[in-house]
């Protein structure tokens, strides 16, 4: 019954569909970073606002803030697969995207160096990139091992450090426990001097002066040279001890993102912390 013309038509219809790689929308900076590291960059058709900072993603369409995504905006990019991090939402929007027949894969967040390879594996599995995934996992694990080797044996003399976030007009927020920055300071062989509170809190000048850190870690995006930053530290800038504090600048997407570049960023901070 099948005429050759029909068979040819069916084949022609099937061919482009098979040849075209799936279109991806990614949300969450670690997810976008991992996807790009797996060589999926050409397939990524849109990213969330944080993804625009990832190398090579600057000119991709922006689908908005990862916690406040819009269903129609994402669907307008005609994705075959939407990869999002754990904080992505609102939940009803993810449901709507699924209801439109587009697969949504949520990659759980984890604020630990041991979670990065899980994220890589999940993304590699969802996109059929098992081989590239295996290579990236091996690299991440090697970086974590190198970091552990560099920081072990120095547990007794861990230098005091604090991660500061500049927010609303010079008000400095310090990272306490249960933050990505806390986990990273500890992983880099430092001691977070703000470990007696949780989350980000405005820096108390008195506590800051009393627990005098040896290192202050700030984002690369903070302007001014070291002296200017030190002068702006409440309760410390004016004292002689304060002038001994050293500033470490980090790329916050790498340092706090728990993505593929995070172990290397931690290793760089670990090296800086061990300098006499």
């Amino acid at each position, binding site marked *: 019954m099948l005429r050759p013309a029909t068979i040819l038509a069916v084949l022609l219809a099937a061919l482009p569909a098979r040849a075209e790689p799936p279109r991806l929308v990614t949300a969450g900076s670690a997810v976008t970073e991992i996807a790009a590291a797996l060589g999926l960059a050409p397939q990524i058709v849109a990213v969330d606002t944080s993804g625009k900072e990832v190398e090579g993603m600057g000119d991709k369409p922006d689908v908005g803030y990862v*916690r406040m995504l*819009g*269903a129609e905006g994402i669907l*307008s990019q005609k994705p075959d697969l939407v990869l999002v991090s754990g904080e992505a939402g609102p939940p*009803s*929007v993810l449901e709507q995207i699924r209801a*439109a027949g587009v697969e949504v894969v949520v990659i759980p967040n984890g604020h630990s160096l041991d979670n990065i390879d899980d994220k890589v594996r999940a993304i590699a599995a969802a996109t059929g990139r098992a081989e590239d995934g295996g290579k990236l996992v091996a690299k991440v694990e090697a970086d974590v091992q190198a970091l552990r080797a560099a920081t072990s044996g120095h547990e007794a003399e861990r230098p005091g450090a604090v991660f500061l976030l500049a*927010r609303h007009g010079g008000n400095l927020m310090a990272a306490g426990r249960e*933050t990505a920055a806390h986990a990273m300071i500890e992983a880099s062989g430092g001691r977070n001097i703000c470990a007696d509170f949780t989350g980000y809190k405005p820096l108390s000048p008195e506590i800051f002066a009393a627990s005098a850190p040896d290192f202050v870690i700030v984002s690369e995006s903070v302007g001014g040279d070291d002296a200017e930053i030190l002068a702006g530290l409440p309760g410390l800038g004016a004292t002689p001890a304060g002038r001994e504090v050293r500033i470490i600048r980090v790329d916050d997407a790498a340092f706090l993102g728990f993505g593929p570049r995070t172990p290397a960023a931690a290793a760089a901070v670990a090296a800086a912390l061990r300098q006499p």
Partner: protein
Amino acid sequence: MNSAREDDLRRRRCVHRRLGLLAALLPVVLLAAAALGAVNISLPDLVKLLTGSGEIPAVAHAVFWDIRMPRVLLAALVGASLALAGAGVQGLFRNALADPALIGVSAGAALGAVLCFYFGWQGMLGGWLLPVAAFAGGWLAVVVLGLFNTGFAAGGTAKLILAGVALNAMIGSVLGFFLFSASDDALRSMTFWTLGSCAAAQWPQVVILLAFLVIGASLLWRNARPLDALQFGEDQAAHLGVSVSRVRRETIVAAALLVGAATALAGTIGFIGLVAPHMARLLLGGRHGLVLPGALLLGAMLLVLADLGARTLVAPAELAVGILTAALGGPFFLWLLRRPSSWSA
């Protein structure tokens, strides 16, 4: 004498024509908003979608019926609810600057929502905890205010406004504490929530808000004449046989239902509750029998258009709708104010 009556008749007819025009305009605005969006749906496809005949791509079907339609309708219902509540509260307080926020319901709802974001609970119960907490927060504020209402007998409305101001300030201080100590991510979510969005719209939300709108609107509708009487002053209204404390109670309950539900589902959206009733008054005169339906229609259209801008202007991303309500409604309101009108004041 005769010509004065004819004049009055002509004026009434003109006003009713304007109300009819607004009512006819609403479906046009709804359809236009449903036709436009980040995903391009062609006109023939739109006709097929609306008539339910013919072959349509599955994605277009899902976008139109599961995403865009509930969203357009939710925006219309939220706008209508806020505008109605505003019309009621302005009539009750006989104050052109009265805003539904005055009775504390928006601040209470914001507190409920901010607590959810603070503790990272916004996704719990499939995302329903956030609107429930916001609604509960709004009602808690109104119940506290209601305790004062029973305490104020005659002339209590002025005291009610002051109690509302104090309540708002107290809630604002608690809100400030949580905003100040929130993590950056939570802070960002809180800020977005206070700018409003209809992005999470789904059919259940539309049905729930419709139910609230029906209840709130009927409560206000049966107080339309008492609210007219109240414009002469509380004592005069009492002499005309109006139970002032009952009007007060029912108007506040209606406003709290309307604003509480709308805010719970779409965040705090400013401007509409304040200005849509004024637009209705400028177009239709001061009678509440006309102001209430007029405000409902204008509020609905304003928010549908603002939401259309929110979902298309920076597509594929979205803007917060609160940014656009005033940007869109402000110029229209100024134009209405400038237009010479015999019964505008």
